[in-house]
């Protein structure tokens, strides 16, 4: 059996074992809901720090982020730089206040905190609806990313191939049976341990996943630097590289060609007789035996590139070349800002966009419900202080090292621009193979898998806690512990299964879906939650106006962006991330509606602001 698969399998088994132990521990608690959804508010240093850090680092950090570094170069250090302030902003700004008041009023979910602050059912319901809406989009995207990673590991396993053949009999046209099978395996694994173990299982597995992520990055860093010949050499090589051109390669049978079928295999480098090097990125084609037909394939053309494993073919012609909108033939473009870009003539990262990301990472992180829920679960302020330090070192290491790893990876493994989303598992496989340790690929691939799992499990739990606590318990306030227990299991299972069904035909633009959902969540919830904790004059009408206003702005910018580009991407008004407009709109609405209305809730605000 594939050694990478064995080590990966051991990792998954360890996750299950931890979840089982956590589930046993949770079932002994007196208050099931408090224990299942918030771990009894008893998280210590490592549990709180690592569950916070890993929940924030989703599939995007290990799939989308490496793809961006590979495509645009060192400028991604500026793109991610806002993470240097994430620990003290995302934990510090709300942490102590939120934990303090949530304990004081015995709130378990975020909508409950808002509802208890204003004594308003409407506020709770609006917040719950927003969380359910955006969380579901986010969850869908993570399920797809999990399936993609599994397919890298399993695609050549005989058992998996047989399984794919079996499942293809029941798969409707247009649905990829391989993807469907990986989706089912991934979902069974994650949903299984979340349903059984609840919050504690999520946190305990997050600790292990955090360690795996840290080790994975550390090992990759050492391997990539040793194999590329040092960081300075990699940066100098990167300086010589220029972005590829997209083109059409036409393959024809010539008198010199072999008689049988000609396979034009994806991922293979070809060289034409005038020394042009190109790669066929996404689809394999066959010129059938005995025919003289030509085959047109989309390809990426590289100048100054000397790849290994070059296939010589004299019968290919290159047509309709098209360069990058920014960075074509520009030496040094991977070392500087704004970085090359295929579509945008102004480059990848204008300085205004860099500013908007410096705002988005820390403050967007602060507004994520998965993060805020964790802020309600730490044990005491000593834990909070030490956790901020731990998270700071964790993020500094992970994110800066990822930039170094994939800038070096581009030099080691050129030609993956068209399949940049696969650069992480492919580089892991290459580094392990070069190091003569194929089992290591399993551990390295476990790092992004751990990141996805740790996000998915948290989101499933937030969705189900919102439905159990903020909807069902409001309708049936006297429901028994036993009833709540079975309902929590059922709803957690139901949410997971629904996400799997929704992702059977995944949308094309995965990364855009993640950005839409995470930006929407933070945009709608950050200001209402922050002002609810820090501004006594805020009113329930102000809270509702702030949430709904941000929702309308977010959806409006997304619809405008869709109409303008035809893609599922929001319109960046003045080059600023839509999240910033959501927050500005939300703040203005909360303040103006609150000041215009009567402050009739001052008495109710007491537990939040008075001893």
């Amino acid at each position: 059996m594939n050694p990478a698969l064995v080590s990966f399998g051991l990792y998954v088994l360890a996750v299950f074992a931890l979840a089982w132990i956590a589930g046993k521990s949770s079932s002994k608690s007196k208050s099931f809901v408090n224990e299942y959804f918030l771990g009894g508010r008893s998280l210590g240093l490592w549990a709180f720090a690592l569950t916070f850090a890993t929940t924030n680092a989703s599939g995007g950090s290990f799939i989308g982020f490496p793809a961006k570094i590979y495509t645009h170069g060192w400028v991604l250090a500026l793109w991610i730089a806002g993470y240097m302030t994430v620990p003290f902003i995302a934990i510090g700004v709300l942490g102590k206040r939120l934990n303090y008041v949530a304990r004081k009023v015995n709130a378990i979910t975020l909508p409950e905190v808002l509802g208890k602050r204003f004594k308003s059912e409407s506020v709770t319901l609006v917040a719950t609806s927003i969380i359910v809406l955006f969380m579901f989009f986010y969850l869908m995207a993570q399920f797809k990313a999990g399936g993609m990673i599994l397919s890298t590991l399993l695609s050549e396993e005989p058992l998996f191939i047989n399984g794919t053949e079996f499942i293809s009999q029941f798969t409707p046209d247009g649905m990829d049976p391989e993807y469907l099978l990986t989706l089912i395996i991934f979902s069974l694994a994650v949903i299984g341990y979340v349903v059984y173990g609840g919050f504690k299982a999520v946190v305990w597995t997050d600790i292990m996943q955090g360690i795996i992520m840290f080790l994975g990055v550390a090992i990759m860093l050492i391997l990539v630097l040793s194999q590329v010949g040092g960081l300075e050499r990699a940066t100098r090589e990167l300086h010589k590289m220029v972005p590829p051109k997209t083109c059409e390669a036409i393959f024809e049978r010539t008198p010199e060609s072999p008689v049988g079928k000609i396979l034009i295999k994806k991922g293979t480098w070809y060289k034409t007789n005038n020394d042009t090097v190109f790669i066929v990125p996404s689809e394999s084609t066959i010129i059938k035996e005995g025919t003289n037909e030509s085959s047109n394939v989309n390809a990426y053309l590289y100048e100054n590139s000397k790849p290994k494993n070059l296939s010589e073919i004299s019968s290919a012609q290159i047509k309709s070349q098209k360069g990058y909108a920014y960075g074509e033939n520009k030496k040094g473009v991977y070392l500087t800002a704004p970085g090359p870009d295929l579509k945008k003539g102004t480059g990848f990262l204008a300085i205004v966009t860099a500013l908007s990301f410096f705002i988005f990472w820390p403050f967007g992180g602060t507004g994520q419900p998965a993060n805020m829920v964790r802020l309600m679960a730490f044990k005491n302020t000593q834990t909070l202080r030490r956790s901020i330090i731990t998270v700071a070192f964790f993020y500094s290491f992970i994110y800066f090292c990822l930039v170094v790893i994939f800038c070096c990876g581009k030099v080691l493994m050129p030609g993956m621009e068209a399949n940049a989303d696969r650069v992480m598992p492919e580089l892991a496989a290459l580094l392990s193979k070069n190091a003569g340790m194929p089992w290591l690929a399993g551990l390295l691939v476990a790092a992004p898998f751990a990141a996805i799992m740790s996000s998915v499990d948290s989101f499933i739990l937030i969705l189900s806690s919102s439905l159990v606590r903020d909807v069902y318990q409001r309708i049936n306030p006297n429901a028994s512990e036993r009833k709540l227990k079975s309902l929590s299991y059922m709803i957690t299972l139901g949410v997971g299964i629904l996400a799997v069904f929704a992702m059977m035909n995944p949308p094309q633009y995965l990364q855009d879906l993640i950005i839409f959902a995470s930006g929407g969540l933070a945009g709608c919830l950050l200001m209402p939650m922050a002002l609810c904790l820090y501004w006594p004059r805020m009113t329930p009408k102000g809270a509702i106006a702030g949430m709904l206003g941000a929702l309308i702005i977010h959806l409006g910018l997304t619809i405008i962006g869709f109409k303008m580009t035809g893609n599922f991407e929001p319109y960046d008004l003045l080059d600023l991330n839509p999240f910033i407009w959501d927050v500005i709109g939300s703040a203005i609405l909360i303040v103006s509606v609150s000041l215009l209305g009567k402050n009739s809730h001052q008495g109710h605000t007491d537990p939040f602001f008075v001893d």
Partner: protein
Amino acid sequence: MTQSKHFKQAKRELFIFLTGWLFFAAWVLIYSYYNAYKDQNEEPSITLGMPSWVFWGIAIPWICATAFTVYISLFVIRDQEFSNEEEQKK
């Protein structure tokens, strides 16, 4: 309405967090604006293996931000007692 000690302290800490964010945002973005957006067609400017603008504009402020985080965690954020509703009733 007399504000609780906890609330007053939280507001003081909030001010320090936001000032810290503003300082590092200004450092990174102003330095990068003047140094990262320059063409490097010929010899690249490299410090410790990375482009010099990354070293002075990202790596060094990142180290300082981590030091700042350690400092405020140890010396600025105050420890406070937490109690929940049930404990208060008791």
